[in-house]
């Protein structure tokens, strides 16, 4: 008992650890404000992930390394959480993420027409990003806009009571 049976060898190749992302003092103080809300740092993981995502476009390896350092967690802890939640992106996403609600109320109120229209207009299918990196398109589950269906959310903005014409206007107004 107590005898070490297997000695773990360090890997014979260099372990690739990306350098952690760096943020401006403004962003750092925004992060501090979130951390101050909780008695346990780990609770701030979701708000901090949204900040990293906003600053870096998605949760890229340097951003994840930053979160691990800042929250004193392992990188795997960060990935474990990041891959659970549908709003957290672990791959590059277009500047405007169009999320069309596909759940029942929107479905029966004309979601299909909106989706078809947006697909044709942008030349992409749900799950894809335009070649210029401007738009990504997703079909998502209920966004709580059932009384004003059909709808989509572009980044965090709600657009409700959509018609193909209204969808055109919204997409064309985005720079």
């Amino acid at each position: 008992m107590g005898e070490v049976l297997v000695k773990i060898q360090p890997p014979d190749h260099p372990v690739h650890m990306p350098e952690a992302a760096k943020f401006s003092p403004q962003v750092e103080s925004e992060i501090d404000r979130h951390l101050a809300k909780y008695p346990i740092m780990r609770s701030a993981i979701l708000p901090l992930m949204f900040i990293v995502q906003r600053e870096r476009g998605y949760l890229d390896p340097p951003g994840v390394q930053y979160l691990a350092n800042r929250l004193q967690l392992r990188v795997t802890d960060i990935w474990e959480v990041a891959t659970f939640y549908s709003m957290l992106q672990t791959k590059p996403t277009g500047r405007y993420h169009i999320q069309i609600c596909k759940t029942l109320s929107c479905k029966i109120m004309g979601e299909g027409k909106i989706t078809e229209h947006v697909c044709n207009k942008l030349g992409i299918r749900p799950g894809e990003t335009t070649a210029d990196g401007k738009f990504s398109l997703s079909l998502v589950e209920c966004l709580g806009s059932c009384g004003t269906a059909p709808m989509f959310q572009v980044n965090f903005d709600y657009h409700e009571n959509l018609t193909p014409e209204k969808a055109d206007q919204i997409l064309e107004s985005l720079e």
Partner: protein
Amino acid sequence: MFIGAIGCEPLQLRRIHLENSQTLDVYRRNGGYEAIKKVLDSMSPDGVIDEVKKSALRGRGGAGFPTGMKWSFVPKDSPKEKYVVCNADESEPGTFKDRYLMERDPHMLIEGMLIAAYALGAKRNYIYTRGEYRYLIDIMDLALDEARAAGFLGNNILGSDFSCEIYTHTGAGAYICGEETALLSSLEGFRGHPRMKPPFPAISGLYASPTVVNNVETLTAVPDIIKMGGEAYQKLGTEKSGGTKLWSVSGHVNRPGVYELPMGYDDMEKFIMEDCGGIPNGKQLKAVIPGGSSVYIMRADQIVGKDVRMDYEGLVAGGSMVGSGGFIVMDETVDVFESTKNLTEFYKHESCGWCTPCREGTDWLVKIFKRIEGGAGRPEDAKLLLDLCDNIEGKSFCPLGDAAAWPIQSAVKRFPEDFEKHLVKNN
């Protein structure tokens, strides 16, 4: 979209149409923060819990558990910190009432949480809002700043020895986090997996401390209960379902919206056909899901001429449940096979993967729906769907499994013709 009360004076929606209703000023000029004053001046924590018990207020998130009872489970003598967590993770398909409460009357939620925090001795409290509702978090943060500046939050509130803070917290897109123990896992910074009950959150919740998790609509009912007294609030509704209730109405109705009705409103047919303006384009009513997607779907002939009373007992007697109060109304053009497939895809997507019956079961259900839709349906597939549901219902770790099974079970039994159409045509 309509927002207002029918059959009673607006209570929760009383300020919703006022200009700048989201500001502290308008809230205070219309009866706001009087309840917390009354509580701090003249009520003990137990006195507050007693009023809430008398009110017969039941949790508005979906389960309908008596709120006063839930509060009374928190141990008084625990040396641990206590927490009040507001569940604003409104994600149940067909439900959008909390959104308008927070958007237009955020101080009502703050006051409700303050009273709950006083009753339970909680100092640090959180509003867990679904990530997609980012604009509501911004509204809540502004309202919290206003309340703090006016002395309604922080140390020694209104000169009393009661100190309390409320913070906003964001979800990130996971329906399961509306389940209270999954919400707490998420708030602690983990994947949103539900936890074993017991211990219930009242004993061991956030950070393993006594915690009460209440829905937005539940907490916003509390200031009025304190002001008018529990008994008067209860009398607005029925004996077992006190007060008023918000119903979100969507789908094929002329006037979708958020409706405040007295509990026990008679009857559901009148509500849909008159109050909500009936079915558009001269179509016939075919089906209604009255409690958010996770309840039994009802046939039109279970509603028309049946005097279904709109409260917890009435809807069970009528063949469904109150749930979150999300009415999805469907006209004759809807194929219930397709609508059920749509909801099953929702549950498959939102299953958190923690337990086998739900994770594997919802996946198989969607596979079968897709096979049937693709033209390879077999006559025995309706029974196969029911068998699968039987292996999920009551056997999953949390209620999401039941929520996935119930819409299918009721749809197959109540709309067999819509399923047979898909199963027979290929044989």
